[in-house]
């Protein structure tokens, strides 16, 4: 399973407040209705906290959710 790149924007202004580390693009596994895929998303390099930005949640992610719901 290859990792999809879905974000062009820069999320370097976000840092993990707990680890005090800037977020890095990292491969993240997502799941919906028994389908899984790897997507490159900003995440804390230490604790692995993943950011799902608003435009992704309401844009591409919502589209994919709908597509999977119609499968």
């Amino acid at each position, binding site marked *: *399973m*290859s*990792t999809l790149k879905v974000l062009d924007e820069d999320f370097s*202004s*976000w*840092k*993990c*407040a*707990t680890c005090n580390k800037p*977020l890095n693009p*990292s*491969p*993240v*596994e*997502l*799941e*919906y*209705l028994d389908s*899984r895929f*790897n997507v490159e998303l900003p*995440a804390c390099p230490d*604790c*692995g*906290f*993943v*950011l*799902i930005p*608003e435009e992704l*949640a*309401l844009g591409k*992610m*919502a589209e*994919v*959710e*709908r*597509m999977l*719901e*119609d*499968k």
Partner: protein
Amino acid sequence: MDQKNLRDWEARCTQEEPPKCKARCPLHVDGREFCRFLQAGQVDKAWAVLCKTMPFPAVTARICGGDCQNDCLRAQRGGGIELASLERFAAENAKRTPIIRALPPKGRNIAVFGAHLSGLTAAWDLGKKGFTVIVFCENKMQGLGHLPAELVSNEIIEKELAQLGKMNVSFAEHGKPDAQTIMAASKSFDAIFIDPLIFNATQFGLSQVDPATLETSIDFLFASPDVSGKSITELIAVGRKGALSIERKLQNASLTAGRDREAPFETKLFTNISKVATVDPVAVPDGGYSLEQAREEASRCLLCECMECVNNCVYLQEFKSYPKAYARQIYNNASIVMGTRMANTMINSCMLCGLCEQVCPENFAMQDIVLEARQDLVEKGHMPPSAHEFAFRDMDFADSSVCALARHQPGTESSRQFFFPGCQLSASDPGAIERTYAHLCSVLDGGTGLLLRCCGAPADWAGQKDMFGRKMESLKRDWESLGRPQIIAACPSCMESLQKGLPEADVISLWTVLGSELGQLSQHPELELLSLQDPCSARSNHDLMNDVRMLLSGLDITFEEPELSGSQTECCGFGGLLSNANQPLSRKAAEHRAEKLDHDGVTYCAMCRDMLAKAGKRCMHFLDIIFPDGNEDPAGRIAPGYSARRENRVRLKENLLRQTWNEQPEPRHDYESVAVEFTEEARTMMEERRILLSDIQKTLHAVQDSAQVLENTETGHKLIQFRPVTVTYWVEYEMKGGSYLVHRVWSHRMRVLGVGGNS
């Protein structure tokens, strides 16, 4: 839906039935399609429509007598379309004639005796299909040569006869064929057609001929009964019928199957002309129509179609088709094993309001198909979870202990009746419920209990049979706990739901009760003329609609019935959970309905009230008038948002417990104490994205002490997330004076499994 079911449904939608002109024409020329092109000035395309159906079109189009003109619906609004003159116009003005290509010879030989219109047509049709045809006649101009020269010139006739020559047809001009020759031909030809203007069946000594197929007692010999009195197009149709019979006979196929609509027939197509204005025909000048005149005359064509339901429903319009096609799409959707179900959104966008069934001449009930389709999706586990989940959560909330209540009237041990306001009225206007309940307790004898909860309609609308069953069982337990009293329901949807799920209960409408106790109601301020909005769930409840009107009149409230009222009322966009499954369409439906109300609206459904109010329409609920709260402009009352609706229900129960039953309500949840404020933008987002105040409070509460916080180094905003059940909420906020100021909120259903993956 099985295949037979599908066909039954399809047969009820008349939209694809032919227009009157086509059904009435012996050749079934599509006058509607022809006029559609002419209206647009596309003469060549109009001409091509004629060439597709007519034999030797350059002649036929010029001599057609317009058999259809009296049947044309336009005949009732000025005069039938002058189709004959328009056909002639097209024949004379078309720049291009489609090339007619005959099939290669099949090696079957047919003799046609006689070259009148029937014989030539039989030759044309058979030749085109690859049969080798010899036309025996005195003279090939026999039929066409007698046509009036001012209609058809010899040049045109010769051109069409030359075309026949290119289509496997030749002429044998041997004088008038006699019976002996014809009988002899039966030995050397595969089949024979006798033009009835040479010999009709009786003249030829054939006593038995089937008028539907022209089959005679002599095998492979086809002849017609007497044709005297028949029009030109009917004579052509006789030849066409003979040709088709010969083709089938030689293919060893059934002569009769599927021919029931060969002769002129009654179409089932319904076209509403009640709003069509009268327009007189464009007079036909001696020299025929000019292009301008032809376009003008063709523009009188109504382009007959039904679309009654579609024209009256934003949902049916939204998906760009009509019920017959929708039925098939739904059938296909259900049949998909692997792949994408394309019709889910369509299935989940119907308001289940039943207006289509009311206006359809064949009572096509889209809501029945759609509900069944939803039940099927649920049963097979294919219902998109996002479509209705928010509504289920809301329903469960209304039935949870913080909102639900089942009590006898204070100071009594039994109830002769109880008030069932419904969860949406509780959400919309809890104060009205308190006032109404107090009134009912004061005027009704025998004890009036109160039951606060949801009627289960959302589960029913969503196709969740099991869930609806469970809701009704629980409702039944409440009803029984109060001693099975009469139910006074305020909401027409509740009435419908109760009748479906609790048929043994005696359910009466609040408006009927108030109407029968008119004298007990206090005066209301004088009101301007109002527009009455009947909720769609009252559509078939004629007693209710009648009682509502009696009540309004009894209260001296003047109201008008909007276009589409009573049993033909339109849904406000909430029905069938449309606002959950397809919010933009729901909004469109509310706006569409609002436009039909000329004055401030008045209605007896809390959702109609709020949906219309949200669409910007001033609207009152009956209770705003009967038990006013002192607000000076009840029609302008703002419809509460999703979070406020929940809070209203909770507070209603709390107030009633304290004030009516003298009891302390249960304490609020911990998370509700989280103090939170919102920017204007965040408030709008919450409503649009259906994120509740409680979702945000739960999120803030859940991560208050956790380490899972992101921080924006530029804005200083914090960002947290929480997934209570099936949705992850994200809340972006800043701390302001010890409280949270929320800037943005969003959510998604997809689950984050974690960093790593396998790449």
